[in-house]
């Protein structure tokens, strides 16, 4: 766990990618985890960027909130959390 944890970035690092997908800087937008209900800025989510794609997970329960994959046909994303833009 430790080694993996130390490879972790957070939502701040993928602000540009979030902007590409959603058309706005969403790092300060608040997301609610569908699994544990934690509410906080997307910047606080753990970002795993070394997979083929980016996975954002809840730092509270490790639940997947958002997956973004760049494919030859463009960006694909799956969103599980509820996002409130501010």
């Amino acid at each position, binding site marked *: 766990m430790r080694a993996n*944890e*130390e*490879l*972790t*970035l*957070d*939502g*701040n*690092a*993928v*602000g*540009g990618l979030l*902007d*590409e997908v959603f058309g706005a*800087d*969403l*790092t*300060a937008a608040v997301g609610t985890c569908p699994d544990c209900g934690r509410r906080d*800025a*997307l*910047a*606080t989510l*753990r970002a795993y*960027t*070394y997979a083929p794609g980016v996975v954002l997970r809840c*730092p509270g329960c490790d639940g997947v909130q958002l997956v973004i994959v760049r494919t030859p046909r463009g960006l694909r994303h799956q969103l599980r959390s509820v996002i409130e833009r501010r």
Partner: protein
Amino acid sequence: MNTLQWQIATITKITPETAKVKSFTLSLPGWIKHRAGQHYDLRLTAPDGYRAQRSYSIASAPERTGEIDLTIERVEDGEVSTFLHQVVVPGDRVEVRGPIGGYFVWDATTSGGPVLLVAGGSGVVPMMSMLRHRAAVGAKVPVRLLYSSRTYDDVIYREELASLATGGVEIFHTLTRSQPAGWTGYARRIDDTMLAEVSRPFGASALTFICGPTPLVESAATSLERASLRADRIKTERFGPTGT
């Protein structure tokens, strides 16, 4: 020009900061004023089309026009940071986009204060943009920086930090591995006692920024919340050693 558009920046200057850290001055044809704490995405493209991309915090003040400084630590086996440290020379060009980020940002004229900054290693880089910004606009908001480094020689911006520690800015160093003779700062990892000592004069309402390796960020944030700092006033930025 918008912040998502990739542009070709020219590296005009490379400044060694420590044995493993260098600052790169990038001249930007499409310069956009940033907010202190924001970053740029930087990408390298190999002749075969393979691309590697990283995000690096801006170290310079937003008030400096036309160019930015990125301070980058060389990471073991890091394909981007190693290239930047060992191959790039002034005059070379790299692809960047930014500025990016709307969360870990501070504006000296509107964000209020006081401000508590907690940094580990190269996590001090966005804090440096904040301190340079504060100085550039002549803000009076009180700022305390608690900065953890391994050794004296690993302290990034050591001399400039010392010169910035005036007029309401106080800087507290801790050296976790070894300390020079006569060292009067802290000499251990950041812990509850240290955070309580540094944050106490600011009370529970301090706007707090924490940036560094994940374990440091999480323990410092948890510790400050236990010390009743308001969680919604604590902003964090984590980086893994193989990434940024």
